[in-house]
């Protein structure tokens, strides 16, 4: 398409420039029933998986239908969401912090037509466009990242594994059979964008090879002291190298100290480390952010490596499905996965989930590693 100006004048970039106006204020988009009863809610109930009702002091009710979203979506899908909101909800819709979509109506009679409309819609491939669920003690949407769609440091994909895992656990998105909610997250490298470090089950992209050094360009592309300071294990030092008879400033990587975090590549484009066979995923488990009963927890590494198996990641989804099933049948009511593992002991967790315990899982990062070892005789055979 030929160029169509928006009215911006590249000759005078600062002319008529509007800045620092921030986002639109949230209450501009409140449905009337929400605006009216803000701060006046009495109680809520989950009527069925994916459907909630909130009752206000005034007696007003608002019914919420939550449905899954792929997070990465086209404008045509968003237009369809808007059409649905226009048709059923007076044009109002909202997104949750796990990227589900919530449609709200103010009358019980409007709920069933909305549910029927949402659950009837499918993509040409057969997938549900708006599967209803994600409430209560089930498996809600997976918080995830860019992956091979857009990022330059990933060790795995995001959208692909998320689709594979959600397909595997889809029944639990639409039911409440878990002892407590199970939060699953994915990050495609250990920058851990998102929630992997504090989720019940986390999928994390991981490298297994040290960076390659592009000596010829390194000093030109990179600020060498930054690359050196980016290394958590001090594996990088400055070095002089000779390329084609030319003395160049560069860095040297001590491969014995490198644990393939990829931080140096983030800072220096001449140190790429992605590798088809080397890269894969790590599974972590047992994190949470809420303060309910027990304090928030970090998730712990439970599977050191599973190879990338695009497009369906069968090994990883099987491990996760199995972990969820064992947790569902073994944990007590209200017990999050981390609470359960800590109560029965991690040695029992590995036994019950039939996960191999390897030396990779034993912390060896600096002084705090010591506190993760067992300084007691209390353990189960």
């Amino acid at each position, binding site marked *: 398409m030929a160029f169509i100006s928006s009215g911006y004048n590249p000759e005078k970039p*600062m002319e008529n420039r509007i800045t620092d106006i921030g986002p639109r204020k949230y209450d501009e988009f409140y449905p009337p029933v929400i605006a009216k009863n803000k701060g006046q809610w009495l109680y809520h109930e989950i009527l069925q998986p994916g459907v909630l009702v909130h009752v206000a002091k005034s007696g007003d009710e608002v019914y919420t239908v939550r449905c899954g979203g792929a997070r990465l979506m086209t404008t045509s899908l968003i237009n369809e969401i808007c059409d649905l909101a226009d048709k059923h909800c007076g044009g109002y819709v909202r997104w949750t912090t796990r990227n589900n979509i919530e449609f709200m109506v103010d009358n019980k009679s409007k709920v069933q037509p909305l549910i029927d409309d949402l659950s009837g819609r499918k993509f040409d491939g057969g997938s549900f466009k708006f599967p209803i669920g994600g409430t209560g003690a089930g498996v809600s949407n997976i918080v995830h990242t860019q992956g091979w769609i857009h990022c330059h440091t990933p060790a795995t994909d995001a959208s692909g594994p998320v689709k594979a895992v959600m397909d595997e656990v889809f029944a639990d998105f639409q039911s409440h059979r878990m002892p407590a909610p199970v939060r699953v997250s994915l990050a495609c490298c250990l920058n851990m964008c998102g929630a992997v470090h504090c989720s019940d089950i986390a999928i994390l992209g991981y490298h297994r090879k040290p960076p390659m050094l592009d000596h010829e360009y390194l000093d*030109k592309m*990179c*600020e060498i*002291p*930054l690359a050196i300071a980016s290394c958590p294990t001090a594996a990088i030092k400055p070095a002089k190298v000779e390329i084609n008879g030319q003395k160049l400033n560069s860095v040297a990587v001590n491969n014995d100290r490198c644990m393939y975090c990829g931080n140096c590549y983030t*800072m220096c484009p001449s140190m790429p480390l992605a590798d088809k066979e080397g890269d894969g995923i790590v599974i972590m488990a047992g994190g949470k952010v809420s303060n309910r009963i027990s304090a928030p927890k970090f998730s712990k590494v439970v599977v050191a490596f599973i190879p990338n198996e695009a497009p369906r990641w069968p090994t990883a989804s099987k491990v996760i499905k199995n972990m969820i099933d064992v947790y569902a049948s073994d944990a007590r009511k209200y017990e999050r996965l981390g609470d359960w593992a800590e109560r029965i002991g991690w040695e029992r967790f590995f036994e019950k989930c039939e996960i191999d315990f390897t030396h990779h899982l034993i912390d060896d990062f600096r002084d705090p590693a010591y506190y993760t070892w067992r300084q007691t005789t209390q353990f189960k055979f």
Partner: protein
Amino acid sequence: MPTVEFSGKSFSVDEDGFIDDYKNWSEEWVQYVKAQEGIDELNDEHKKVIEVLREYYEKNGIAPMVRVLSKVTGFKLKHIYELFPSGPGKGACKMAGLPKPTGCV
């Protein structure tokens, strides 16, 4: 890498318009970036920022932190943005011939 011609000189640049090598910087490069960055006229303050950036990079091998740049030049961040509308990274560092800022930017 694409090359750009400006005032009879040619420069290799990346897709964001940063120069390929700090050493290939010249006065013409400043004039070329000026046109790209929406700066009408270069004054002494622009030149001071560029000079400080180049001096700091030559001495330390990194671009200065924004607070350091502010303190050494005496220009508040707001003033640096007035001089370089794209900011100290995309505007000033590019004009000074420093490597492209990296990290989660």
